[in-house]
């Protein structure tokens, strides 16, 4: 009896699976195209655009080209993303410790000074930001990208972290204080271990943000050896004669570090992306 009910229910789920799979195949179709085209030359692609060719005819030289082209860009991007993420989190942890731990004179005012920035659309101040970076002679440097992303990431991260630090039990801080720990030690030995999961999520979000950024690098960077992935791919797109296989292989390589990050932190990734979309 029970199994009969179960099978009816199971059968009722089939249409849902079909619709979901249809949507998912639309989602994953660009990835499939990117992967299989990356092994073809232009002639093969025009003859046979849809199906992968026999692996013996795969044009591995597309990937060789892509590795040579993209690897320096990946190195630059990893440098910017890792330093930027670390600095963003370090600054944000300290500032949110300040707001969460004690009520100090002016702390209310400072809090609003940060909150107001949430209303500030970044699109309006890109022009003065450019001239500011020029005056600080930071144009055409990777530090400009790091500094701007650290400054831009503060508000959201402080906003989230303050809540988490306020929710930590007060006893932990008091115990640390009795043991003679200063504020910096409390941050290092109480806040960091207790907030590790949320820091991981925020870190992934910051990393993704920097990885996906291309407008700022496009404005700031001029020298080819400083290019991050974003600018590198934009210039690749601008080339007149296109070898689609080479281009697709380069696109795929641009995603490889994120795929590796994803494999090691799937749970944080899923949570981070849904929280990141919620950010106001």
């Amino acid at each position, binding site marked *: 009896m029970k199994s009969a009910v179960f099978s009816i229910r199971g059968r009722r789920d089939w249409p849902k699976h079909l619709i979901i799979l249809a949507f998912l195949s639309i989602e994953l179709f660009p990835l499939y195209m990117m992967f299989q085209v990356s092994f073809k030359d232009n002639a093969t692609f025009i003859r046979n655009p849809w199906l992968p060719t026999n692996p013996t005819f795969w044009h591995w030289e597309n990937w060789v080209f892509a590795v040579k082209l993209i690897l320096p860009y990946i190195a630059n991007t990893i440098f910017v993303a890792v330093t930027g993420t670390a600095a963003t989190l370090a600054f944000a942890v300290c500032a949110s410790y300040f707001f969460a731990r004690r009520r100090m004179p002016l702390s209310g005012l400072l809090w609003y000074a940060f909150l107001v920035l949430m209303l500030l*659309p970044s699109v309006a101040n890109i022009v003065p930001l450019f*001239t500011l970076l020029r005056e600080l002679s930071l144009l055409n440097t990777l530090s400009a990208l790091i500094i701007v992303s650290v400054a831009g990431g503060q508000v959201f991260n402080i906003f989230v972290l303050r809540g988490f630090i306020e929710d930590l039990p007060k006893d932990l801080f008091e115990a640390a204080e009795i043991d003679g720990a200063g504020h910096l030690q409390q941050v290092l030995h109480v806040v960091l271990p207790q907030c590790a999961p949320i820091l991981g999520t925020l870190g992934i979000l910051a990393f993704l943000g920097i990885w996906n950024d291309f*407008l700022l690098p496009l404005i700031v960077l001029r020298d080819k050896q400083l290019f991050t992935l974003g600018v590198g791919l934009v210039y690749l797109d601008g080339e007149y004669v296109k070898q689609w296989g080479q281009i697709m292989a380069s696109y795929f390589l641009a995603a490889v570090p994120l795929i590796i990050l994803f494999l090691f932190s799937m749970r944080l*990734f899923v949570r981070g992306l849904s929280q990141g979309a919620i950010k106001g």
Partner: protein
Amino acid sequence: MVAPNRLKKSFKEWKLYGFVLPSLAMVMVFAYFPALSAVYHSFFEWNGGDLQQFVGGANFLRAWRDPVLWQSFGTVFALMIFNFFKMMPSILLAVLIHRLRSDRWQYIYRVLLVIPMVVPQLVTLFIWKFFFDPNLGVLNRVLDIIGGKTALVWLDHVFHWNVFFTGVPIGWLAQPELILPALFIWGFPWIGAVGVLIYLAGLQSIGHEVYEAAELEGIGPFGKFFYIELPLILTQIRLTLALLIIGTLQGYGLQLLLLDTNGGPGGRGMVPGLWMYNRAFLAGEFGYACAVGMVLFVFILVLTSLNNRFVRAER
């Protein structure tokens, strides 16, 4: 004995300001200063360098009379309205995944939904640009296979669009009339996937007893959608819509890369952000670009406050 102790304590507390100082300094220099500078320079004729001349409201008057800016606002409003339709498939998908009885399949689909997001947004953008290509592009080939091209040509005959012709490949990003449709089609998968995860988080809070009660009342699958699921994820939907709208209003990277700095043929894909970028970095009219930025800022502010009021009134 108490006083030195208190002094010592308050000195220790003053050190606490050192913790907020780095963040504050960064934000002051790289967020507040550029913002204030943008406000200031919107009243100047400014080439980005030494040439600065106070012109009062001339930049704003020029913006008011600027046909390109008006057209770009028209385009961006069309894109904003279209966000509403872009959300629907992801709501449907979230409800379908939520209604699956097997937790394992729910988890598998969730992971599969994240995978497209691992690809950098820029790459997704370029792959779509490749799909739009008139000769090699996947979109035209799919349309040929399913007969969509023939249908479009027939519709063209009936409505006299003069856009689709037999034997001529459809230039999605090359024909002024097709720029907006191309921008509408673009980006559905990515936006969809993030939305699905948010809606799923909302749907998760619905208890089994609610569904059982509904089943006892004889409410069908559509009834459940309209009476249970939709009202319960309305907060998430409103939030996503607000974020999408503000993102659309601010965005110009998509248009810059798909259509170049002039907004494509006829400038049909021009949006305010791109027009600002264009004026500053192509024409060297930094002052006017700042004024355009201010106009955009006011729009975003009005929309944000409308949204806040709307959300609060609904609660």
